[in-house]
């Protein structure tokens, strides 16, 4: 897979993620992070959650470098990336977008429509209009094209799938007036499958990760994400870690 699709390829070395950009401090990976969760218990005391660095329990993340969450589709351990309902102690471990190859449709349309006025001019199709009207129609055309390209880009950039150490989140902006954010706790996940259909998906290594949960929303589909097998493996590792936390009693 070309490096431009994978933000981890040219990123900085791993470091401990902070809660805010200004709070991010490098830390020893071997030292577990102890966080006072502050949830009330039967005896009225705050519980303590000990968070291990993701590299300690995840083979997938051990091989990935932290990244700055740029214009990439596979962003492991993103620095300075947060989401609206994120808890104070929650860390974003993986951010996913649709593979860039799946966006070639609108990019091709924009490119084609961008050169279309030059074709019209070459055959004199708009010569029946006065010169100022021809100029105005050209500017109007490119305004429409800019708007279409911007909307398509925004739709790609902000429709993200986020995996944190506590839950999975699906942020969905399907059009101008629709916003949907769904999330499920890691311990609610029951089954994870990944599939890659078609020649493009096989060649460029992208596909859909289907996550069955026991929550209200019973299935999460991470559609056309890069490296679906790796994503599924990582979620399974998180499930194992969640189970271990419960057994070891690291979360009350």
């Amino acid at each position, binding site marked *: 897979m070309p490096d431009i699709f994978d933000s981890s390829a040219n990123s900085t070395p791993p470091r401990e993620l902070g809660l805010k*950009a200004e709070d991010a401090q490098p830390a020893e990976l071997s030292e577990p992070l102890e966080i006072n969760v502050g949830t009330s218990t039967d005896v009225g005391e705050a519980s303590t959650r000990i968070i291990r660095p993701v590299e300690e329990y995840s083979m997938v993340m051990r091989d990935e470098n932290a990244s*700055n*969450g*740029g*214009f990439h589709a596979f962003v492991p351990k*993103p620095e*300075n*990336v*947060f*989401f*609206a309902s994120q808890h104070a102690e929650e860390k974003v471990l993986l951010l996913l977008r649709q593979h860039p190859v799946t966006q070639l449709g609108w990019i091709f349309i924009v490119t084609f429509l961008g050169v279309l006025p030059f074709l019209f001019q070459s055959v004199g199709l708009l010569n029946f209009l*006065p010169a*100022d*009207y021809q*100029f*105005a129609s050209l*500017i*109007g055309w490119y*305004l*429409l094209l*800019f*708007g279409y390209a*911007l*909307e398509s*880009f*925004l739709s790609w*950039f*902000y429709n*993200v799938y*986020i995996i944190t150490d506590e839950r999975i989140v699906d*942020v969905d*902006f399907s059009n*101008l*007036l629709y*916003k949907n*954010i769904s999330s499920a706790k890691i311990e609610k996940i029951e089954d994870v499958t990944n599939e890659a259909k078609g020649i493009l998906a096989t060649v460029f290594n992208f596909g859909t990760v289907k996550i069955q949960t026991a929550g209200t929303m019973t299935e999460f589909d991470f559609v056309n994400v890069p490296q679906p097998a790796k994503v599924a493996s990582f979620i399974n590792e998180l499930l194992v870690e969640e189970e271990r936390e419960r057994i070891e009693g690291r979360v009350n």
Partner: protein
Amino acid sequence: MLLQVPLTINSFNTAPGTLPFDASDLVLLFVKVLLIIAALLYLFFAFLVTRQIKVMRSTVITPYSNLIQLFGLVHLMFAFGVLLLFVILL
């Protein structure tokens, strides 16, 4: 002067110099009004896009949020410029 020329179907004869206006002027005026209305509607759409970007920025916070907001503002300014262009130039 205008009252001396009865407005009949023959008034739309486009032969130059025979009438105070011709049909092509009327069509262009109609097109201009349509273009200005379209530009106004588009300006509203561009404004909605900036609001949408604001919501998106607050939902997913990335280091590129300011750059994307800039894209939205450039789009809004472009739409406003086109509206002005249609009003002034046409």
